[in-house]
């Protein structure tokens, strides 16, 4: 394999991406796939808001509405938000810690394909007899009663995608623990790396309960199990527990990386060291821990009893403390800084009030007695959109602008970026702020329509108009991306001029081996330190130039995943079609055969030789 840059045809490029194990290319694939699902989920959101724009609307039927809300929630959480965050984790984290790649490049690719095939599987339900319709939480009694195959697509699709996420989590953990460059101690790791670390730990422990819950659902629906069927001694509450044992940490899996992204942005554009670095790290870890101890606050109205409700209520409110620490640290980072209001910084500034609003309503719901009033109303919808859109989506959009030059060596237009921000930000508050009041006025969530005499017309209309604003913002973003890609003006490294961490020190385009020489890290904000000391190269090196060991590309992850994808259809039609069991067996056979191939074949990777490295200036 040659390390010399060369022009490739379309087929070769496609093959390269199908087989790649390079974390930077996998990041791009996560970005594209996640972006695609984000648009699909966004279209579903628009359909919801069109349906609810006026009373007694018949734009979609009640059944279709249920399918749309289910798929909107599921797609946005599992197939858009998480993969988009994975895109940035993959693109940035290894560079921030001075690693040449992630710990398990092969598994990295496998994780991506599992996510993609799982997502495609789930979305195929639209064309194969109807999408899942029991809400993204898919509570068992409801989902067991759902006719058709929608819920089966949900359970199997998420099982496949979830396996991918789990693999990615372990991969990031090992990468951060084992692959840090010399001098990169834990307490010198940038916040994006720290939050990736904690979020990955949450994935490690939160996804197995989901796997088991989905497994039970699959067994109950397709293979004669009785876990949730009370006539057979089952208990429907088990699903709720398993789902929320996963579901609550999931919220932190999403928001912690968002915190990491904003921590980077505040430090870069306030041109100041992050205030209270160690307390930030402490708060991150604490939030991660507490995230596991609060799941039953989603179930206050189930009737767990006052003792259980009290314990979970107190634990829930405790999370506000480390989160508050973070908010104040960010404010104090900006305080007295030399602020540059770029697009990412705009998002960061918009994030603070939005997220605080979402956090405060969260504490309100943490009070169990009040939750009885708020439960299942639009207040809840408003709350979680404030944390997820106001926190996670703003972070993703900010990161997209911030790290676009790192990933593609181009700058997104700042002007269009700011237009996107204002449309999206105003639209977001217009859509969701008013939903708090709809909730307080008694509008239940997940209703497909409402009556003209209920007094909810105006607020719902305003909410729908807000959604249009958000859509315009996203359209401008897409235009911005297209213009930037077509123009293709290279910008070099550190285009913001104030990069602080290692990823900005690498020459652009980032060589496929990342670091010609492993850097030596001499403190927090490595690149900033080197710049302050007038180091033109931006890095101090820990080793002389020598051969670099690289992993081989592999097509096996794709085939392995394809096998599971095929097996999924077999499981889905089990007991209904004659071909179901053979297809299930065939699919699993493909997967296991490719696993066997992987383990039997020697795969030692290859070396880039010192001489080749010396003549090279970068390039892919």
């Amino acid at each position, binding site marked *: 394999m040659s390390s010399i840059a060369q022009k490739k045809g379309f087929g070769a490029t496609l093959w390269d991406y199908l087989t790649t194990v390079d974390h930077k290319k996998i990041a791009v694939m996560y970005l594209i796939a996640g972006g695609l699902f984000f648009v699909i989920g966004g279209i579903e959101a628009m359909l919801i808001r069109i349906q609810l724009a006026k009373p007694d609307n018949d734009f979609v039927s009640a059944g279709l509405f249920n399918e749309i809300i289910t798929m909107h929630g599921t797609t946005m959480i599992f197939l858009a938000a998480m993969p988009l965050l994975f895109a940035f984790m993959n693109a940035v984290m290894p560079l921030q810690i001075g690693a*040449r790649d992630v710990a398990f490049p092969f598994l990295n690719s496998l994780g991506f394909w599992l996510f993609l095939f799982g997502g495609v599987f789930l979305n195929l339900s639209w064309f194969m007899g109807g999408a899942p319709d029991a809400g993204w939480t898919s509570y068992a009694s409801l989902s067991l009663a759902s006719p058709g195959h929608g819920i089966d697509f949900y359970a199997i699709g998420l099982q496949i995608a979830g396996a991918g996420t789990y693999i990615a989590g372990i991969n990031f*953990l090992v990468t951060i*623990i084992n692959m840090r460059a010399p001098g990169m101690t834990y307490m010198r790791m940038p916040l994006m790396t720290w939050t990736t670390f904690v979020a990955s*730990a949450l994935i*490690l*422990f939160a996804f197995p*309960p989901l796997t088991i819950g989905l497994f039970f659902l699959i067994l109950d629906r397709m293979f004669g199990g009785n876990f949730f069927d009370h006539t057979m001694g089952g*208990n429907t*509450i*088990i699903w709720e*527990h398993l789902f929320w*044992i996963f579901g609550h940490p999931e919220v932190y899996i999403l928001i912690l990386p968002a915190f990491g992204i904003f921590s980077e942005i505040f430090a870069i554009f306030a041109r100041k060291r992050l205030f209270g670095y160690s307390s930030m790290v402490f708060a991150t870890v604490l939030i991660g821990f507490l995230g*596991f*101890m609060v799941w*039953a606050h989603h179930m206050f109205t189930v*009737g*767990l*009893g006052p003792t*259980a409700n009290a314990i979970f209520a107190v634990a829930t409110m405790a999370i506000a403390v480390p989160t508050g620490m973070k908010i104040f640290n960010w404010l104090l980072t900006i305080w007295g800084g030399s602020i540059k209001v770029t697009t990412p910084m705009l998002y960061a500034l918009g994030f603070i009030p939005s997220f605080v609003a979402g956090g405060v309503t969260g504490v309100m719901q943490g009070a169990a007695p009040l939750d009885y009033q708020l439960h299942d109303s639009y207040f809840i919808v408003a709350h979680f959109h404030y944390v997820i859109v106001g926190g996670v989506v703003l972070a993703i959009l900010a990161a997209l602008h911030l790290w676009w030059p790192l990933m593609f060596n181009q700058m997104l237009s700042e002007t269009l970026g700011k237009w996107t921000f204002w449309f999206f930000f105003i639209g977001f508050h217009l859509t969701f702020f008013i939903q708090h009041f709809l909730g307080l006025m008694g509008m239940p969530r997940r209703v497909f329509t409402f009556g003209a005499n209920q007094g909810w017309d105006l607020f719902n209309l305003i909410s729908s108009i807000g959604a249009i604003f958000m859509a315009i913002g996203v359209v401008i973003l897409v235009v911005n991306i297209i213009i930037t890609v077509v123009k293709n003006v290279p910008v070099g490294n550190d285009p913001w001029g104030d990069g602080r961490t290692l990823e900005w020190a690498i020459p652009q385009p980032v060589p496929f081996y990342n670091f010609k020489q*492993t850097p030596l890290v001499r403190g927090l904000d490595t690149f900033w330190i080197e710049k302050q000391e007038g180091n033109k190269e931006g890095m101090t090196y820990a*080793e002389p130039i*020598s*051969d*670099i*060991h690289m992993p081989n590309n592999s097509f096996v992850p794709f085939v392995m995943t394809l096998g599971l994808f095929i097996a999924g259809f077999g499981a889905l039609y089990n007991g209904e079609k004659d071909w179901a069991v053979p297809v299930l067996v065939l699919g699993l056979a493909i997967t296991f055969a490719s696993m066997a191939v992987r383990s039997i074949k020697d795969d030692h990777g290859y*070396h880039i030789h010192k001489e080749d490295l010396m003549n090279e200036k970068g390039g892919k």
Partner: protein
Amino acid sequence: MSHDAQVYVKSDTEFNYIKQKRKQDMRGQITTFAIMIFLTLIAFAAVAADFSKYLIAPVILLLAAVQVVLQLYYFMHAKEKNHNVAMFFLIFGAFLAFVFILTFLTIIWWG
């Protein structure tokens, strides 16, 4: 990240010493195994002897816990250095396991 694992040739004395040490370790492992078998026997015997279930349940759970610790620390070498991070994650997993099982035993059926 160095590229070559340094090949280090042990001197004869060193080699014999380490071989001896490994043998001793292995003897320790067999002792561990004997203890594990013994604990298992007690557990089964206690059940077969039909003692009160309020006595048996805590005792056999304790025996199981001891056995698992032996398995982890000796058979899986977790007592050796280099296992700190791994053990941190495993113990945290075990803690969560405890919490989950506790809640399932209490609030799943009791309203």
